[in-house]
């Protein structure tokens, strides 16, 4: 039997050799489509979900990034947070100050990707939808998840921009539809960012086609304009319904209309929860012509996974949540450039004025002066310098104390406002000895008990709390740990005397801070009330001169510092790391973040 096997084996081997002499043309043949150079992959944490990022449900930076690349707009923010004009798309100018009139002019190059020109119908629809002025009902009927299901014949656009709401009247439109002049019902400080940043509206002809079955683009545009001008409830209800939810998608849509954009990129692939591919349009006529032919955004929220994907060459640009570990990992990779910079969130401590606590004059028999001295002593004791050195510097060695309540460091008015407020001279880096003296001068009998509210389980804030407690206790306070998992719900409850949390800036609009400091403001959780601040904000609302706006904010901040409203700590750093083959990446703090100059990227 042994011999049998051997013979068989020999036979097999011999025939194998014979056969391999004429091996068939196996693999090799149909390899994949190589694709050219100039392709870049970016890692982002949350998947894209709507082409219309102006409803309250879809207003999210992940949508804004893609919409920004697929659409042109009149203006964009650069890395210094200065507004830049995109003249190849159009221009915006103020034609009259009182009443405030703003003229939008589209250039001839402004076209949707299906060839239809961008014009009045698109901008007017954007105003009509986002202002909320055309809503005939506050109570749109929705399914139990929140999507507008059936407005019941009523108009309900799911958006509310207070600035746009000030435009009450139908605009003046030029003959060719390329010039639109809006008149504001009262002056408005931030007119320059109205309808100009991110995108300049959804394509009206597409909305009309899908909402009211008007195939021809010109007719569709006219139908939209007519519906808005005559406030045609029936038509507007259908338009609103489509505008609210029609552009939502979580994978490549079957209806290609939804992907019509006015910008340099078009969407060619979108795999649910995995990735989204944008390719440069050949027929794009604007100035923002990208150097890369393809930008793929891959989705994964794990920061370490992003770092390793960068190291493995699967992506070339990442913006992971920043921790010391992630930073260390990024720095350990060869061929990767790390641009850690300030992010959009800043930390601050606010005091409570109306809870009979240590900072409320009511606790001292209405002695305003004494309460103020206690507040100032407490704020003075907060070791801002040490907090930045110990907690933020390890992540960003360029980190500095944030000195303004309203301005992002690096924004054009930051230095002016900081100087006006005097916060640096008043509090510096924090001084325990000084604080102790101030508390003694205030003449309180026993150590004031300060309940400090912050997020439980947030390691960074826990560290900050430890540093604050240590210093304030030395200065003569008794800081009580009031950490809570539901801290955000407890804001404004008065069950704490000081709170430590972060605000996130979403734009550089000057009126954004209004709600934080005005008496009874939505975000004024500590019961702060000051007539002068309220008056300044009234003035700011209608002030259109940028220089005067900065002055007003400087005056507001001076009051905040003098009255001991609270104190700002630092801008939280964000990691933007990219392969050193990818050129011209410039991080920026507000939406669309590092994508703002995608057309300059080069590889």
């Amino acid at each position, binding site marked *: 039997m042994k011999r049998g096997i051997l013979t068989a084996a020999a036979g097999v081997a011999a025939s194998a050799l014979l056969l391999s002499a004429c091996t068939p043309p196996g693999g090799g043949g149909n*390899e*994949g489509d190589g694709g050219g150079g100039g392709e870049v992959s970016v890692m982002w944490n949350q998947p894209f979900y709507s082409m219309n990022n102006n409803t309250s449900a879809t207003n999210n930076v992940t949508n804004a990034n893609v919409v920004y690349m697929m659409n042109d707009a009149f203006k964009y923010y650069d890395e210094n947070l200065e507004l830049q004009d995109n003249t190849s798309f159009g221009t915006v100018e103020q034609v009259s100050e009182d009443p405030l009139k703003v003229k939008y002019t589209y250039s001839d190059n402004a076209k949707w990707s299906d060839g239809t020109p961008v014009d009045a119908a698109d901008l007017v629809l954007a105003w009509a939808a986002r202002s909320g002025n055309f809503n005939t009902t506050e109570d749109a009927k929705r399914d139990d*998840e929140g999507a507008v299901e059936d407005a019941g014949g009523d108009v309900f656009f799911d958006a509310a921009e207070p600035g746009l709401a000030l435009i009450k009247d139908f605009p003046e439109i030029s003959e060719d539809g390329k010039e639109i002049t809006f008149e504001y019902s009262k002056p408005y400080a931030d007119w320059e960012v109205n309808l100009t940043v991110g995108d300049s509206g959804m394509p009206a002809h597409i909305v009309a086609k899908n909402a009211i079955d008007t195939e021809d683009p010109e007719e569709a545009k006219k139908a939209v304009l007519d519906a808005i001008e005559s406030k045609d409830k029936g038509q507007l209800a259908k338009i609103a319904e489509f505008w609210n939810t029609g552009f939502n998608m979580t994978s490549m849509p079957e209806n290609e209309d939804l992907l019509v954009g006015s910008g340099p990129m078009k969407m060619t692939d979108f795999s649910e929860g995995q990735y989204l591919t944008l390719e440069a349009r050949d027929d794009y006529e604007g100035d923002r012509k990208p150097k890369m032919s393809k930008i*793929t955004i891959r989705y994964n929220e794990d920061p370490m996974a992003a770092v390793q*994907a960068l190291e493995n060459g699967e992506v070339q640009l990442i913006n992971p949540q920043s921790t010391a570990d992630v930073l260390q990992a990024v720095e350990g990779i060869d061929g990767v450039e790390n641009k850690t910079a300030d992010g959009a969130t800043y930390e601050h401590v606010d005091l409570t004025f109306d809870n009979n606590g240590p900072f409320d004059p009511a606790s001292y028999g209405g002695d305003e002066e004494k309460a103020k001295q206690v507040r100032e002593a407490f704020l003075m004791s907060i070791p801002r310098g040490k907090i930045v050195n110990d907690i933020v510097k390890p992540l960003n060695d360029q980190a500095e104390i944030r000195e303004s309540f309203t301005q992002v460091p690096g924004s054009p008015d930051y230095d002016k406002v900081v100087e006006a407020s005097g916060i640096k001279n008043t509090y510096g880096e924090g001084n325990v000895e000084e604080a102790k003296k101030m508390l003694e001068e205030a003449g309180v009998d026993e150590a004031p008990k300060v309940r400090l509210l912050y997020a439980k389980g947030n390691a960074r804030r826990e560290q900050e709390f430890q540093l604050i407690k240590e210093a304030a206790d030395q200065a003569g306070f008794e800081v009580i740990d009031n950490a809570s998992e539901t801290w*955000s719900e407890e804001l404004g409850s008065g069950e704490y005397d000081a709170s430590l949390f972060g605000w996130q800036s979403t734009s550089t609009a000057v009126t954004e801070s209004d709600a934080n400091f005005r008496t009874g403001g*939505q975000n004024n959780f500590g019961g702060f009330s000051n007539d002068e601040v309220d008056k300044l904000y009234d003035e700011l609302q209608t002030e259109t001169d940028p220089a005067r706006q900065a002055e007003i904010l400087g005056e507001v901040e001076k009051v905040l510092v003098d009255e001991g409203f609270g104190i700002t700590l630092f801008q939280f750093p964000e990691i933007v790391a990219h392969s050193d083959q990818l050129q011209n990446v410039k991080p920026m703090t507000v939406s669309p973040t590092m994508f703002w100059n995608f057309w300059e990227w080069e590889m």
Partner: protein
Amino acid sequence: MIKYLIRRFLSAALVMLVVTFLMYVLIDLAIDPLEDLRTSTSPNAAQLMENRIRNLQLDVPSPIRYFWWLTGVGGCLIGQCDLGSSWLTGQAVTSMLQGAILNSVKLVFVATFVSIILGVTVGLVSAIRQYTGFDYAITFITFLLYSLPVFWVAVLLKQYGAIEFNNFLRDPEVNWLALVVISLIAGAFWMGAMGGSGRRRYINLAAGTIVTFALLAFLFGSNWLLQPGIGLIGVTVTSLAAAVLVTHLSTGLHNKRAFYAALTTAVLGGVFYYAMQWFFYFVPANWFIILGLFVVAILVGVGVGFAFGGPDKGASARTAAIVAIIASLLVFVDRNMQVWSNYSNLAQIRGRPIATIGASSPGLQGDFWIQTVDSFTHLLLPSIALVLISFATYTRYSRGSMLEVMNQDYIRTARAKGLTERTVIMRHALRNALLPLASIVPVDIITLIGGAVLTETIFGWAGMGRMFVDSLGKADIDPVMAYILITGILAVVANIVADFVYAILDPRIRVNA
């Protein structure tokens, strides 16, 4: 029987009602859909908050909202499923589920089967070598693996399995010392698994070490990793070796008819290999063709077994069919290997084939083979991570049940009759030892559709687990409830199925009791 089934399903439905109700109320207590608005600096935050409260009907108590949700779910019974939709994205939950379930099944399928086969085999061998160094080592290693946190394993796997491995491919420099150490460990493994005493142990150690070293040296030292392939000779020789091994375990080499049937099938495998090269050249492959060919191969194996005839046709057919499976797998793997270097040189891959994230390379255009290789490079690391961890459970189960069976009286009787050790173990012990697994495996397979949250997250697979955790984090209750509904139903059904399988395999158990 019918009565029993009805009773089981009714009680299952009741369980699901209670579970979903409790979960709905508990989740609703835990999440806060307004969280982002509470810290918003937007001037109209109050209005937005009011809008959202109205949209989500947060002013209605959650038990009432549960029954609204239940009405939509009830629609599934009449073919009108409404599992709600995500309020964040406006997407219907039913459409979210489609992609998620597919990804989870893809990810978990391979890992589950590999860990069952590996785990059970190692567990059995470990039981046969009870209280030897081998047994202790396996016990130690399985517990070690079982206790590893997956997020840590995943990071290590990415670092060494992907990043460093890809670096190695670009600049191959073999660390010979590491190869020697790995070979020695492999040799020790084989020595322990083969058992025996004295001289034979040393021979096994040496043989195991040398064979492993030769194999590794060939793989890493030559150009093989860049241009892998098995080839006609490789396929034929490996199939022949498989024929010997399978016959040995299945019927014993003394069963000449079975042995010859297996050998014939192996040689046919070689012929099949050659034919397939031409076949795939002319016919663009897809999964239906592949599965069809696979079935044909098994039928050929069965046919060869019957052709050799004799009183024991069934055993021969079984043996030959197993060899046919192995041979056709080899042919399939080899065909994929042929496109490896093309794949690796693609612009998207840039010579770094092993991926750390995602289920596929974005924008990859290629034929069936390129796509298959792409799936493989993305599946590799997450599958290893899952196998390393779930492997341990199966090892412990199969070791335990094998030990119990081996101590039964009938095994002693079988030995006393003078049966060979192979017959005692494979025919008498193994079948009964696998019985308890019949009740574990269905539950495992089906609940795995629920996904592997951490693995999916770290490797960037948008599966069920991810959907659940993401939605929970974003206070989006409907996708969370859909997840609970589906995993709950599957778990209940899997238990019923397991009971039935058990009853079929073990005649002592009756279900209509």
